[in-house]
């Protein structure tokens, strides 16, 4: 990403910049030092990192510098031209420009151009070019005229292309632009006419160029605010012929078309250009960096004090005149990748690496490396001798098991697992079980037809697995709708996430009765409710009174009449289990599972309404069964508790109340539940009232034990 860093001012000394700004900023032979030539009489050498001038040279009063000072990289001397024709050469030690080498030329100099690795070139205003050395050998030599009358050089740049110097300069004559390319190795000068294209009346304000193998890419910023590109071939096909070049639009409306101040453009690298100017007519001037490849604005910096419309770029520094002082803005363009931008790390997976076991055996000390391995081996050998199980001596049973899993048939795996489980008490039992399950599940995922159900059941029943060890297990079981396995998981795993619990619940509620009949779910939590139906009717009255649930006394409920119309229906509904026994067993497994309300509630909302009503009916039925006996428990080995039932009723209603309340078939259920809650509240309020009486009774009881404040008793000590 291209980025502009914090700007800094190079000197607090106000440069005598004219209305056109500075003459130029040029590199010196030291990387950090730059020659700044103002439009008056002074050349200053700045060290940028220190932000201070190292030297300053001025020409005499009355003289004026006409060409920015440059450095001759081959000699380390500085070259400047004043009064158009007078050439001065000096170095750091010189103090007075009057006393340094002086050469008076025969023609006016437009610019001296110097780049690293070659001698400086002198471009005369008439278009002629000379090497500095050749010129100094005979300063008064005749300078020919290359360009026509009234043609004015606008801009020039000096490149090294394939170790050959190439000079390009642009001239203008009556609104037409011409580009001249001077190849120094062949001394060929090629002239091109730059065609304007559509935008006839626009004036080109600023040029920049970069070299790309065969072409010089000349970019120009026009007064309409667009950047155009012209590709100039370095090796012209026919140098004699006058050729035309067409500009193409590169970027549109980078700066405001009718900018008051000058605009400037400079190429930063292949893809980026810096543009100085105001982006909108009224706004302040900005330095903006554009990516021309993606046509995007990368960054911009506001320059509120205005600029002279000049911009130089050397190394990593952008120079401009901001207000009255020379400002430097460091520019950086670091290589960026999309992955880096998104914060992702690239990581390469080495396919050859050995897969480390995911399971840590806490019962054996870790980090012992080989020693640990060996001791394990020997222990196993000892045990094998003891129990005399014939196994191949080299391969431990766990490894054998794992290899079996990867290849063999379900039947064979089952046999192997059973064999391994029979050995049970190996020290790495936990890890082997873990690895086995992961292995099986991986194969399940790879081969859709492979589903070693019995094996998985056996492994779950070892009590060493948990959801977090093998999250895929339940996922696969859910996919296969294997309710038996799911029930087992719900019973065995302590850490099932609420979303998975809910997914199980969905399946348990939606699975067809006929398919349930075939399954072999564990029924221990379900009591055969149908058996107790006979003596139900006799008990009903007493049981209800016992727990304070008495619908007959509920007078304020206007729905009662409706209910009373079909009392038979009601009794039927409350006394017969709304679900088949298998489903009841599955739902009980859900009731027993641990959950956190906040995480469960959002998932419960996804369950279809008719399933919710079914579950609620079942829960209500369980509640009625619960309240049948005084201890408020359900019969059976491992039945759901009253609290679990109540909590789930609350949860379901919380999650789906608006849905359930709109369903006509759920109406009676809701009324019943409402009465249930009401009766509970009244029971508790009664209990609170009774508590006081109980306490009095307790006090009375204490006093009975308390044999008064004084008594004489008989004590015999043995």
């Amino acid at each position, binding site marked *: 990403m291209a980025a502009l860093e914090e700007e800094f001012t190079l000197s607090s000394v106000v440069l005598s910049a004219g209305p056109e700004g500075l003459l130029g900023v040029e590199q010196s032979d030291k990387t950090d030092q730059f020659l700044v030539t103002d439009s008056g009489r002074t050349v200053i050498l700045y060290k940028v990192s220190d932000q201070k001038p190292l030297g300053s040279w001025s020409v005499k009063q009355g003289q004026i510098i006409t060409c920015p000072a440059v450095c001759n990289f081959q000699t380390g001397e500085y070259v400047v031209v004043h009064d158009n024709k007078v050439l001065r050469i000096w170095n750091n030690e010189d103090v007075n420009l009057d006393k340094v080498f002086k050469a008076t030329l025969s023609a006016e100099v437009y610019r001296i151009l110097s780049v690293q690795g070659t001698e400086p070139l002198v471009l005369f205003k008439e278009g002629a070019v000379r090497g500095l050395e050749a010129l100094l050998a005979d300063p008064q030599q005749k300078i020919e005229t290359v360009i026509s009358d009234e043609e004015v050089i606008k801009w020039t740049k000096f490149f090294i292309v394939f170790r050959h110097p190439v000079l390009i300069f642009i001239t203008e004559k009556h609104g037409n632009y011409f580009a001249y390319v001077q190849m120094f190795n062949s001394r060929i000068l090629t002239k091109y006419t730059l065609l304007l294209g559509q935008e006839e009346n626009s004036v080109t304000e600023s040029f920049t160029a970069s070299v790309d193998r065969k072409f010089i890419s000349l970019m120009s910023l026009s007064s309409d605010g667009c950047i155009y590109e012209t590709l100039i071939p370095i090796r012209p096909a026919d140098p004699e012929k006058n050729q035309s070049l067409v500009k193409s639009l590169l970027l549109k409306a980078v700066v405001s078309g009718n900018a008051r101040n000058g605009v400037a453009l400079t190429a930063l690298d292949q893809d980026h250009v810096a543009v100085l100017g105001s982006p909108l007519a009224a706004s302040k001037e900005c330095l903006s960096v554009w990516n021309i490849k993606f046509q995007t604005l990368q960054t911009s910096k506001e320059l509120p004090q205005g600029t002279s419309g000049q911009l130089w770029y050397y190394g990593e520094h952008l120079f401009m005149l901001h207000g009255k002082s020379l400002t430097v803005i460091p520019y950086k363009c670091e290589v960026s990748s999309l992955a880096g931008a998104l914060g992702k790390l690239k990581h390469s997976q080495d396919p050859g690496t050995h897969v480390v076991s995911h399971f840590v055996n806490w019962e054996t000390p870790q980090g012992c490396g080989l020693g640990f391995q060996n001791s394990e081996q020997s222990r196993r050998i000892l045990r094998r001798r003891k129990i005399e199980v014939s196994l191949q001596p080299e391969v431990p049973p766990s490894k054998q098991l794992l290899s079996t899993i990867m290849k063999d048939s379900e039947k064979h795996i089952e046999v192997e697992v059973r064999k391994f489980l029979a050995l049970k008490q190996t020290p790495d039992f936990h890890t082997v079980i873990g690895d086995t399950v992961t292995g099986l599940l991986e194969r399940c995922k790879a081969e859709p037809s492979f589903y070693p159900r019995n094996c998985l059941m056996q492994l779950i029943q070892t009590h060493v697995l948990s959801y977090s060890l093998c999250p895929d297990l339940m996922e696969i079981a859910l996919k296969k709708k294997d309710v038996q396995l799911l029930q087992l998981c719900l019973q065995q795993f302590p850490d099932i996430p609420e979303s998975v619990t809910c997914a199980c619940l969905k399946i348990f509620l939606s699975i067809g009765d006929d398919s349930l009949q075939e399954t072999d779910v564990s029924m221990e939590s379900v009591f055969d409710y149908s058996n107790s139906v006979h003596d139900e009717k006799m008990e009903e009255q007493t049981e209800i009174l016992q727990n304070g649930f008495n619908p007959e006394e509920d007078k304020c409920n206007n729905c009662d009449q409706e209910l009373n119309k079909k009392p038979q229906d009601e009794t039927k509904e409350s006394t017969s289990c709304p679900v088949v026994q298998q489903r009841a067993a599955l739902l009980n497994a859900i009731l027993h599972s641990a959950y956190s309300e906040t995480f469960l509630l959002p998932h419960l909302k996804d369950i279809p309404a008719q399933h919710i009503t079914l579950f609620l009916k079942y829960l209500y039925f369980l509640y009625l069964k619960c309240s049948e006996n005084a201890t408020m428990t359900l019969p059976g080995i491992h039945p759901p508790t009253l609290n679990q039932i109540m909590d789930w009723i609350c949860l379901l209603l919380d999650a789906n109340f608006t849905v359930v309340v709109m369903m006509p078939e759920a109406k009676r259920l809701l009324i019943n539940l409402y009465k249930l809650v009401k009766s509970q*509240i009244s029971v*508790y*309020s009664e*209990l*609170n009232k009774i*508590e006081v009486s109980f306490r009095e009774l307790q006090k009375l009881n*204490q006093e009975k034990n*308390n*044999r*008064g*404040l*004084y*008594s*004489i*008793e*008989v*004590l*015999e*000590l*043995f």
Partner: protein
Amino acid sequence: MGEFKVHRVRFFNYVPSGIRCVAYNNQSNRLAVSRTDGTVEIYNLSANYFQEKFFPGHESRATEALCWAEGQRLFSAGLNGEIMEYDLQALNIKYAMDAFGGPIWSMAASPSGSQLLVGCEDGSVKLFQITPDKIQFERNFDRQKSRILSLSWHPSGTHIAAGSIDYISVFDVKSGSAVHKMIVDRQYMGVSKRKCIVWGVAFLSDGTVISVDSAGKVQFWDSATGTLVKSHLIANADVQSIAVADQEDSFVVGTAEGTVFHFQLVPVTSNSNEKQWVRTKPFQHHTHDVRTVAHSPTALISGGTDTHLVIRPLMEKVEVKNYDAALRKITFPHRCLISCSKKRQLLLFQFAHHLELWRLGSTVATGKNGDTLPLSKNADHLLHLKTKGPENIICSCISPCGSWIAYSTVSRFFLYRLNYEHDNISLKRVSKMPAFLRSALQILFSEDSTKLFVASNQGALHIVQLSGGSFKHLHAFQPQSGTVEAMCLLAVSPDGNWLAASGTSAGVHVYNVKQLKLHCTVPAYNFPVTAMAIAPNTNNLVIAHSDQQIFEYSIPDKQYTDWSRTVQKQGFHHLWLQRDTPITHISFHPKRPMHILLHDAYMFCIIDKSLPLPNDKTLLYNPFPPTNESDVVRRRTAHAFKISKIYKPLLFMDLLDERTLVAVERPLDDIIAQLPPPIKKKKFGT
């Protein structure tokens, strides 16, 4: 072993005062406890939590703050505006100094122990310099606008935190100016309470200030920025106290609901360095407000309105899992508040500000074990003797003949002569007590009631001759030169020849009363004496120590008896050593010289020296009478310790005559019934 008629007395209407402050001293492993009546008690946690010293209370001195400073100097401050220092050797108040800031609500000693800070009603925080023999006012800190209820020093001693009403101030000690003022939220469960009282603050070395307040919050503040870092709402009522462990890795708070919460600094994940304060354990050992908590290195200590002092060891800090790791609940004083006149069957009960004299009833019926006999005459309340002045009674005694009553407060000694004419009693005060009998720590009459022995707080023992209605000072045993240790326990031999006296730490001195000179000193033992008595005829001195050891020392022979040596050699039964209340009274059977009768708060025991000692395998206490076992079995299993746990909590037990015992019980329920009602919590529903 024996059949006794037991007068089971439950009319001793004793209610301990609520605990106001506790202060733990790490150096000596002692705990100072102050009660709402101004009493200050010192418990020695190393000596089986024995209450070894106490300073009697005073009506106008409500202690609000208690702290140790300068090593082992104890200071208290209270609502009378005075700071007091206690003399732990002579067991009196060294001096009291008015802080001139109105009632004092809080006090804290600087981490170095050389400075004392008090927070006053008028909002001032005053700094005192502790000089070797006094304290000296140094300066005031910036005055706050309301009372300073809690204070805490930063461990470096450069800053303090002061809790007030609605805000906490942080002061710079050097400048005395408030650096930060942290406003405490008044909101309580969404309802704005009138005021939020900051009951306690604790300043940690990392700059965190922990505050507890009346809105039920425990809050963590950053004292550098004055911002609230974390808030725990832990109670529906006030959180009244806080104490931080020295390591600053755990602290304890007490709430008005009687719950004590333990907070610990635990790592966020199992192996990270980042730690956070987590509420780890709640304890509900109190029914009422927990007014104060302390944090010893191994235990949480709490006390409050329900008068129990609870010491809850932290299991993770206890190295050996022995009986010390068990919860201790101390309710009753470890000294005797009751004396008894055997001849007239009278009981004298000592209360804070009055004495009660009761005559026991009688019966003619007989019965078998466990029977309650019909009373032919009920117990009578004969006398209610109120003290003059605001001071609490230190000690009292009735003579065996029942015709003398003596008691003492801090400044006065009272002696009364009782005359019995049929059913009427007349009481006459013996006037003109000599000046040296100003204050007594222990009073004892000789068996024939002719002599009075008084242990004064100057360390001297006075012998006074009583005859008719007058008295005569016979002798004073002066303390050995250089010691000022007060004697707290006295025992006289039935023949009146020997007097044994014990201080809080040094050994037991035995004086010859006839020759009026020191006879011998029983070798010093590591643990303080809790009770002692001299046996008739043999003149063996039986001494019980707080570590539950019992020694028998022959005064004439000046050496331990053979039985005592045997016991020491074999050792006591482990269950005997694990009892958690000290033996407070020892007596003897006049006809059975081999028997020693002793009791603590939860059991009564007769030691039969003629029987073999129990070893750890035998059953120490068998609550059921042996029924169908043959005599052989019974004889084989019989051992020296005959224990009864029927009467509890047992405050006093003595032998009236050969076949009659008197047991004074104080059921806890009766005490609770006299306390203000606790905060009611709903039991049912929501």
